[in-house]
């Protein structure tokens, strides 16, 4: 009996060690994965999601992190999140200041590409999206508010963002720096707003792709005259109910830091 005990002790000890090791492995890996909860609960970063994105919780639940939306975007507006965003790792977002969604695909390619419906398949047109709402965060530095015009490249010579200018090329977005402006009073945010562009086209009887469903029912942004005693004409940008939060106004704003920012926490309430 004594002898048998002596022999089995190392075996039992090994088995116990293996068991404890396995428990430690379990705690370690599950623990590491649950660390992903912290950035999500704390909302360390609030991202502007691509068109059609479900509400943030549902979006992260349904996104399979494959990046198909990234691949189809003609202006490469969509990027994938890093590990510091926890459960959001690999999920798509748009950094509007660097490259906004200008809907130059017209057909919401990212929505069509999404395999899980994280970008809801229930919408078809740019004006049906609800990514967020633009906010005029620094009105005091706005060129229009100061009564100033704008001449030159909207974001400087090194800026790599793209926009589609219909009058240049209907199908191919070009670099913003290759399209300089000369404006008496700066109205870039209104001028380049994809919703406003569509409304203008529709009013001229030429809806995009000849499809009247493409016509947005509401305006998204306009410049309002500021009434005061001075001689200079001054105007302020006002965000309207038709804003979808695409971010083009934030991207094109020539002032540093930008006058307009996207607020992805705000919503017109049509987000699925």
């Amino acid at each position, binding site marked *: 009996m004594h002898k048998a005990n002596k022999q089995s002790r190392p075996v039992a000890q090994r088995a116990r060690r293996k068991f404890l090791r396995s428990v430690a*492995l379990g705690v370690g890996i599950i623990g590491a994965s649950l660390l*992903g909860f912290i950035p999500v609960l704390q909302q360390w970063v609030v991202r502007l999601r691509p068109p059609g994105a479900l509400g943030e919780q549902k979006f992260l639940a*349904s996104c399979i992190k494959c990046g198909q939306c990234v691949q189809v975007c003609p202006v490469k507006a969509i990027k994938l999140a890093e590990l510091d965003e926890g459960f959001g790792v690999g999920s798509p977002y748009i950094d509007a200041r660097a490259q906004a969604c200008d809907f130059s695909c017209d057909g919401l390619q990212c929505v069509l590409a999404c395999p899980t419906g994280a970008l809801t398949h229930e919408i078809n047109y740019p004006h049906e999206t609800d990514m967020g709402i633009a906010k005029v965060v620094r009105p005091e530095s706005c060129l229009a508010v100061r009564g100033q015009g704008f001449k030159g490249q909207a974001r400087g010579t090194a800026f790599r963002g793209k926009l589609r200018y219909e009058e240049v090329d209907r199908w191919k977005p070009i670099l913003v720096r290759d399209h300089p402006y000369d404006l008496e009073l700066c109205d870039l945010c209104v001028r380049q707003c994809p919703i406003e562009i569509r409304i203008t086209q529709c009013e001229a009887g030429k809806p995009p792709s000849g499809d009247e469903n493409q016509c947005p029912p509401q305006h998204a942004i306009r410049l309002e005259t500021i009434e005061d005693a001075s001689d200079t004409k001054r105007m302020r940008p006002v965000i309207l109910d038709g804003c979808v939060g695409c971010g083009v106004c934030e991207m094109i704003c020539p002032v540093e830091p930008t006058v307009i920012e996207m607020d992805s926490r705000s919503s017109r309430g049509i987000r699925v």
Partner: protein
Amino acid sequence: MSQLTRSLAELLGRDPKKPTPDEISPEAKQLHTEARADKSRIEKIRIELAEQAVHKPPEKLRRKRWAVLILVNLLFVVSYLLDIQLLEGALTASRFVGFHMADLNSALQVMLAYKHVVINLLIGTVTVFIMWWLLGGRTFCSWVCPYHLLAEWAEMLHEYLAKKKIVKDHPFDRRARTWFWIIFAVLALVTGYTVYETISPTGIISRALIYGPGIAMIWVILLLLFEIFYSRRAWCRYACPIGLTYGLVGATSPFKVQYHLDSCFHEGECRKVCLVPHVLDTVIMGRARGIHVDIGADCTRCGRCVDTCPTSSLTFKFKGLGKLL
């Protein structure tokens, strides 16, 4: 206990059991007796292994497999780089010339977290399910998963260091993987987040290759270091729920590795190279229940045993198509 139940139990982490005498077919029993009585057997093995030491057979299949693995992953990269829309997306979900494909484990996590399945995801999941059922389930691991390749290289380093007695392998309980699978499924269901995707090295590496690497690769490097210095192939063996998902899919697959008792010398070379040596328990002298034994569901069909066996006692088999390779 049927062959399938045994295979599933071992997939879930049970240690292989020695067969009871009545489980062994009379033909196999006779071969076991002959092998035991053969006094020259050990001598034969010694000659065999000495021969092999001089002319080490090249691991032909391994090279082919690596080529396939790299090619599949490159296809994703090239498709995006050249914008040819051949294979869009990443390993978690993709479109192959327009057809939806979804990784079964990623799809499962999304379904559990979102509790809603859109038709595209369903199509992708069913397509991939059929594909990997036909191809053997865990075949995904060794022929496609990019982490598997990195882990194989880490394993080479581990074995080199182990030979020099610098590191030692610390095995874990294989049931851990089943627990991980259950816990991650429950976490997805309860929290509503695809928790596992946060740490999935397969997804992280696939995205890193296609969209550029990020800080998530640090996690992958930590896993590899853990495998090199502490526990051989730990992630694939004891942790990865993707492996278990595909193992379950491939349990009834027609594509298998098959063992042939009649030509086996029981050298045990196959078990040394195997990622999941418990599936090769049958090659130990006296353990085979029949003359031809199908290898269990946990087998990744990597073919290293097929390459390594000096007597060709392990072969690929596609049921209904005769012997392959």
